[in-house]
């Protein structure tokens, strides 16, 4: 009896193996082709959304609060059902990729980080919006959107996402601490380093600057900001990675020096811990995305209310000022049905329209339009808006390469810059290793 049972089991296993092998040899997914985009020739209004249901995947940045307020209003205005799915940075990226690669079309609308533009564009994950934009040109007021904001989703001449939330890299500082020490807000990197040193009093628990040092995207992106501020680049003119130039090594040294004036734990800081350090009052200065600015005036989360001001991010002495620009676009899934895509486009048009933008901003959104940033009411409420505008006008949206290989560069820098900061590698070794890792994985 046992003998027969074994025979039967063997038979089943052989069967499964065969089925498995046959199944494995089938192509995994149909080859990608350019999506057929033929939006109706006539401009459609919100009524195109009647009876449609959309899922919006949003990063849990500050602006998600604005979505929470505005999505129900859009539903009311359009008759569509919009489900808001809030996801952390890494989760959002991985879920979107899984959705795109599997062609499952779960998410119709998604927030697209500026650095994903190249990858999403090259792989045709999101719908190019150019046809929609040409069709509805009359109502879009495209000129009102700041030129740099178009880097939020532009890839090789097409728009794979539409500008949604523009961030400027700015320098936040504690007015009170700088005044006490008789220090002017730094305008160059040299002044920044000197000020950070002067303001650090480790015994009193006060530090000059808060930085991102944690292994992964955090340290990689902060280092890239410093590369930009010293006027250097991570790619050459042909687009090849050049992480380990002598210039970049020197910048990494400067970046490492700054950590002597940061809280001891800074080599383990993500964005949220850097924010906590600044908001808890232990740190005099912090470079960071402008979207966090309003939060410093909120007594529930900040103990530095009324003591913070901001200025443009300092650049190397003598360098033509250019400021790091980042933020989010909003894209439409290429796998959604044409009806859903039409309604998703209506949502984008609606949320980025000048009328809604003020409400977007007041609920923790971030600006993209000149008219919003110069609106007298808005400027009265957010006195730092003119500095933001200045940063946007000289904004550099490409300091983090918006290319399909971005995640490879970020991962390599994320590991090796951190290794340098904790003393595992020298600056040369770190960038040498990062360059090699990027070259090995470049495809």
């Amino acid at each position: 009896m046992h003998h027969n049972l074994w025979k039967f089991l063997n038979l089943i296993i052989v069967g499964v193996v065969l089925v498995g092998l046959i199944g494995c040899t089938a192509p995994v997914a149909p080859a990608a082709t350019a999506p057929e985009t033929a939006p109706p020739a006539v401009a459609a209004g919100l009524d195109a959304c009647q009876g449609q249901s959309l899922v919006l995947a949003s990063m849990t940045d500050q602006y998600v609060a604005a979505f929470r307020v505005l999505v129900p209003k859009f539903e009311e205005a359009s008759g569509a059902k919009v489900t808001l799915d809030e996801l952390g940075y890494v989760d959002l990226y991985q879920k979107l990729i899984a959705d795109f690669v599997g062609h499952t079309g779960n998410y119709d609308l998604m927030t697209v980080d500026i650095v994903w533009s190249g990858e999403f564009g090259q792989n045709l994950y999101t719908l190019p919006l150019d046809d929609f934009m040409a069709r509805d040109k009359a109502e879009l007021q495209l000129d009102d959107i700041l030129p740099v904001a178009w880097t939020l989703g532009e890839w090789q001449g097409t728009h794979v996402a539409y500008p949604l939330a523009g961030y400027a890299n700015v320098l936040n500082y504690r007015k009170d601490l700088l005044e006490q020490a008789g220090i002017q807000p730094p305008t160059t990197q040299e002044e920044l380093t000197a000020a950070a040193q002067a303001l650090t009093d480790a015994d009193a628990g006060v530090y000059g600057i808060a930085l991102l040092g944690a292994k992964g995207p955090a340290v990689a992106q902060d280092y890239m900001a410093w590369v930009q501020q010293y006027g250097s680049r991570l790619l050459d003119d042909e687009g090849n990675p050049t992480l380990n130039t002598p210039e970049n090594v020197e910048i990494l040294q400067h970046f490492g020096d700054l950590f002597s004036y940061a809280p001891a734990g800074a080599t383990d800081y993500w964005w949220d811990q850097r924010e906590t350090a600044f908001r808890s009052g232990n740190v005099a200065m912090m470079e960071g995305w402008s979207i966090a600015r309003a939060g410093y005036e909120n007594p529930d989360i900040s103990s530095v209310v009324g003591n913070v001001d901001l200025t443009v991010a300092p650049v190397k002495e003598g360098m033509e000022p250019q400021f790091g620009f980042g933020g989010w676009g909003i894209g439409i899934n290429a796998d959604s049905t044409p009806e859903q895509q039409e309604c998703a486009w209506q949502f984008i048009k609606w949320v980025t329209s000048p009328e809604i933008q003020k409400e977007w901003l007041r609920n923790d959104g971030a600006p993209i339009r000149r008219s919003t940033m110069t609106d007298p009411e808005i400027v009265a409420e957010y006195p730092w808006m003119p500095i933001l505008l200045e940063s946007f006008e000289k904004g550099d949206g490409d300091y983090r390469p918006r290319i399909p290989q971005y995640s490879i560069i970020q991962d390599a820098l994320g590991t090796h810059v951190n290794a340098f900061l904790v003393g595992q590698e020298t600056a040369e070794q770190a960038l040498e290793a990062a360059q090699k890792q990027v070259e090995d994985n470049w495809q």
Partner: protein
Amino acid sequence: MRRALRGEGAYLLMLLPLLVFVAAIAIYPLLFSFRISLFKYRLTDPNQVQTFVGLDNYLRAFQDPIVLTSIQVTLIYVAGTVLLEMSLGLALALLLASEARLMRGARSLLLLPMALPPLVVGLVWKSLYNADFGVIPYYLKALGIDVGRGPLAELNWAMLAVILIDVWQWTPLLMIIFLAGLKGLPLEPYEAAFADGATRWQRFVHITLPLLKPTLLVALLLRTMQSFKVFDVIYATTGGGPGSATTVLNFHIYTVGMTFFDMGYAAALANVLLVIIAILSALYIIILERQQL
């Protein structure tokens, strides 16, 4: 019909759902992963091109410096967690073996960490360890100890810090296993030893330990296998850092698969890990079978 439900037919019929289940969720993915490990296959490639490369991915694995260091790191992690957990687990089991009410209460309390998801445990410990806001550095500093960048960010301490998290969570499991082993020991040898005037230590070394050997072996293998597969705690606390100090093999596989989407290579690496764990499970099964004899 009735006849079919008797004897061998019944066996087969009742086994069938399980076999189909196992085939669908275990054997098929296994074959798939073996197959793609022979291909150059990038998940995000819009044309989904798969090029057959033979054993190239495996050869690449053994030349990849990150893989070699991550295997080293994994071995340190496994040795550290298993040794500490085994000794602490045994000590706790001996301490709490009595049936007094206090001991029973203590035993239940000690089981709590096991009930928490490792990801949550990792996040909690990450805040406890935080150099500037964390509780642990706060008290260490109060004692005059320099915590530097914090336990998770110091090159020399990060590994110990993550090992301690694992020890905190999984020592109770070993305690339970050892307790069960202790309860099952025969009393006669102890009575004989007592009559011969053996000391406590002699009884422990010459009776308890040898009798407990099978239990110790099972526990050792079980924890070793689990430790090799560690991912969540590392993901939640250090992300493999500082530098590559805590990049265990499984975390590296995750990076290759979920950051580079280099599925062929990730599958090859996963299969290497699979072989290591398969050898350990084979040992485990052999020992279990011997015990039954």
